């Protein structure tokens, strides 16, 4: 046995994985320390492992067991005897303490990785909501959830996905609320993933969704309070190490319109804001298409004065309405993409240049009509009113589809394009739950709970989740 350990140690030393070997002499007993300095807490090693071993005063025999129980100060200690697992432990940031005479070796967890502090959420900002957002470290994230839900029924199941990255993925749920069907479905799908590396929760999201679907079926969240709220509703959260977005399954369409701080504010405001967000979604999708319909196919929908002023404003425009709409939407998308990647020093000025100058100058040069500029900026502003980023992305794409439909067949094409989207919406499932859940199948209580977002009157969990524990009292 002892030779194997030393032999393995020398092998590892020759490979260039960064292993460092420290030899200690404790009362004439040889003790070797193996660790990768890049990912361990070197201070902790010297204070909690090396120092107590070297200062060991007693005269009795030093075994691994005695080391673990009486000498080493570090908190997580394991025994193992398989030398093939050396690499695995070392790459996880653990230190291996071995001795040539013993059959076991100790594995001490001293992982230290660079991580940032808990900061405000970047994407899901709100006015009256807690600001501790997730970071890239899975321990921080899990601790943010754990301190909020002190229920012993909260279970955290870890698994390691990805052959080369061995990313730690945690499935979090509350055992007496969650529906075990979804849970098992999610766990099965996760276990079936076979891939080199998982770098971000977006990869897992793609594995858990159906292949050809347009609308996002798994929700993402950056804020720990909203994840805790969803767990209490009976949903399952998936946290991926290295990603500051947690996944929540299942997620229906209406929940994409729900921003966490609705629940914390006034009830009437939350009703108003929910309806406003829904209208914002519709506006983003259809405003340009409606413009094309009205200008090119059915101007007589409008009263006579509007027709004249509309025609007047388009007199100098050289392109027809469809091309104008597509062009302006394309320019806005370009501006949006370039804005996300601007460095901070020149960001604001270029933003002003892009939006104001291009808009104003285009109108003055007679390239687009002023109404088109208003419509395009209104629809892109409306898209920012939606709290969830994944839905907004899809609407940006579907906008072009609607413009094309309206451009070919007018009002009829607009309705057919809309119907196509509704059919796609209605036939999507999120982990087995229909996507349009409180609307169809209709449940007035759930819609009321969603709109009012009032914790006092909302006594039950949403019925489509089919949780084990249906009431919140």
């Amino acid at each position: 046995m002892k030779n194997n350990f030393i032999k393995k140690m020398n092998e590892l030393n020759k490979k260039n994985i960064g292993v460092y070997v420290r030899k200690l002499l404790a009362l004439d007993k040889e003790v070797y320390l193996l660790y990768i300095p890049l990912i361990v807490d070197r201070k902790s090693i010297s204070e909690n492992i090396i120092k107590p071993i070297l200062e060991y005063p007693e005269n009795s025999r030093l075994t691994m067991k005695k080391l673990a129980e009486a000498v080493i100060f570090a908190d997580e200690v394991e025994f193992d005897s398989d030398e093939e697992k050396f690499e695995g432990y070392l790459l996880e940031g653990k230190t291996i303490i071995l001795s040539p005479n013993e059959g076991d070796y100790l594995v001490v967890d001293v992982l230290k990785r660079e991580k940032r502090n808990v900061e405000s959420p970047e994407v899901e900002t709100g006015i009256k909501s807690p600001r501790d957002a997730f970071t890239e470290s899975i321990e921080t994230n899990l601790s943010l959830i754990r301190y909020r839900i002190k229920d012993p029924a909260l279970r955290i199941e870890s698994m390691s996905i990805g052959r080369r990255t061995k990313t730690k993925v945690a499935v979090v749920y509350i055992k007496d609320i969650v529906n075990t069907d979804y849970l098992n479905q999610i766990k099965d799908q996760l276990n079936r993933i076979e891939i080199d590396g998982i770098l971000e929760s977006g990869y897992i999201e793609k594995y858990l969704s159906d292949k050809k679907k347009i609308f996002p079926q798994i929700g993402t969240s950056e804020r720990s309070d909203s994840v805790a709220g969803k767990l209490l509703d009976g949903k399952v959260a998936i946290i991926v190490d290295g990603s500051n977005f947690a996944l929540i399954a299942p997620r229906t369409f209406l929940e994409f319109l729900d921003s966490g701080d609705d629940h914390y504010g006034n009830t009437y405001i939350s009703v108003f804001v929910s309806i406003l967000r829904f209208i914002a979604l519709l506006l983003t999708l259809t405003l340009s298409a409606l413009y094309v319909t009205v200008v090119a196919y059915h101007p007589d929908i409008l009263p006579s004065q509007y027709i004249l002023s509309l025609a007047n404003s388009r007199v100098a425009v050289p392109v027809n309405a469809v091309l104008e709409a597509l062009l302006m939407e394309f320019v806005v998308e370009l501006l949006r993409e370039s804005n996300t990647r601007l460095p901070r020093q020149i960001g604001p000025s270029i933003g002003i240049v892009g939006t104001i100058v291009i808009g104003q100058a285009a109108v003055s040069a007679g390239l687009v009509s002023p109404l088109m500029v208003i419509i395009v900026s209104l629809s892109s502003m409306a898209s920012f009113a939606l709290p969830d980023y994944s839905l907004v992305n899809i609407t940006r794409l579907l906008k072009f589809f609607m413009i094309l439909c309206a451009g070919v067949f007018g009002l009829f094409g607009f309705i057919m394009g809309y119907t196509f989207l509704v059919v796609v919406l209605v036939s999507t499932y999120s982990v087995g739950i229909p996507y349009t859940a409180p609307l169809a199948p209709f449940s007035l209580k759930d819609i009321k709970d969603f709109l009012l977002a009032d914790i006092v009157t909302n006594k039950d969990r949403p019925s489509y989740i089919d949780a084990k524990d249906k009431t919140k009292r």
Partner: protein
Amino acid sequence: MKKYRLFFIILIISLILTGCWDYNDINKRNITLSVGVDNAHNGKGVEFSGENARLGPSKGHDGGQIGSASISSSFTFVSNGKDFEEARANYNKNIPLNDFSGATRAVVFSKEYAKNPGIDSYINRVINLFGYRSALLIAVSDIPTNELFNAKIKNDISIGHAVEDTLRHLSEEGDLVYKTIYEANSDILLEDVGYLIPYIGIRDSSISVLGYAVMSNDSRLIDIIKLNEMSTANLLLSKNAVQRKSYKCPAHPMQDISVKTSLKRRKIKTSIVNDSININIDLNLKSEIQYPYHYLSHNKNDIEPLEKSIEDKIQEDVLNIIKKSQEEFKIDCFDFARYFRVQNPEVYKKISWKEEYPNIKFTVKVKTKLVNTNLLEIYQE
């Protein structure tokens, strides 16, 4: 399945690129603002005249204002032809863009055209053709429509706007009943009745309403109801007729009092007595004193005689206008036929309403109540 998908994609792309059959941008179309129909001046045929919108400032003028949405001006057009189709074809040859008639505001017929051949053929044209809205207003003008549309008016953008705005504001105040093409059509389809259309002209560089034009059952112009009788005709036709008149105060003969009388309810009962038709018209009005011409003190006993004099005057006016319609126009232009048909359907089928109309006995009962004296305290103890 992959081949089918490819096939569908190719089909859809070809549909998008070659389709758009109905695609017509609004600024590339010729917007008609108003239409006038007249007899052709040089012999037989019809003449279309009217206004088209002139879009935007002309090129080269204000450089900074291109594309701003300003109210446009208009220019007139004229086209002749042997019938509607030929006149329209001649019109099409003169305009540079596709025509758009969905923004038309009014259709005006000239007096001569309304007398002969009559307006029902054009009404049928508007109702059935694609592109026209059958909610257009119609009016008859006392000058040829060519002159009407070329006249300069001082208080509106174009003649079409002026006609529509004038007719609408008068009808909101209760001084006029206008007819759309759809409503005129339903009167034409109910044979044996006539109908009233606003009669307009140009006075003092603005469009002014001169009365009602009485159309016969084959949609020809028979006669005109003048301005002073318009308010009485409104009492029989409109839902919210209002009459503003000054009456002599019965107690103080030198005093004139201005009274606003509005219609509360109108009941028309038809009956057959001994083979002759009787129609009872019951008008329930309410009056409000607006102001007296001179300041004099009145007391409460002046109210009843004032009410009675209002009732008598209105009853006399109504009977006069009905008598006129029976003797001079000889056509029912106040829609009594519908009431008779509802209340006596069997008899209506057997008789010819047009022939029986001059022999109908009318009785009119007017009842009014003076509800307030505005804010004036003119009655003292």
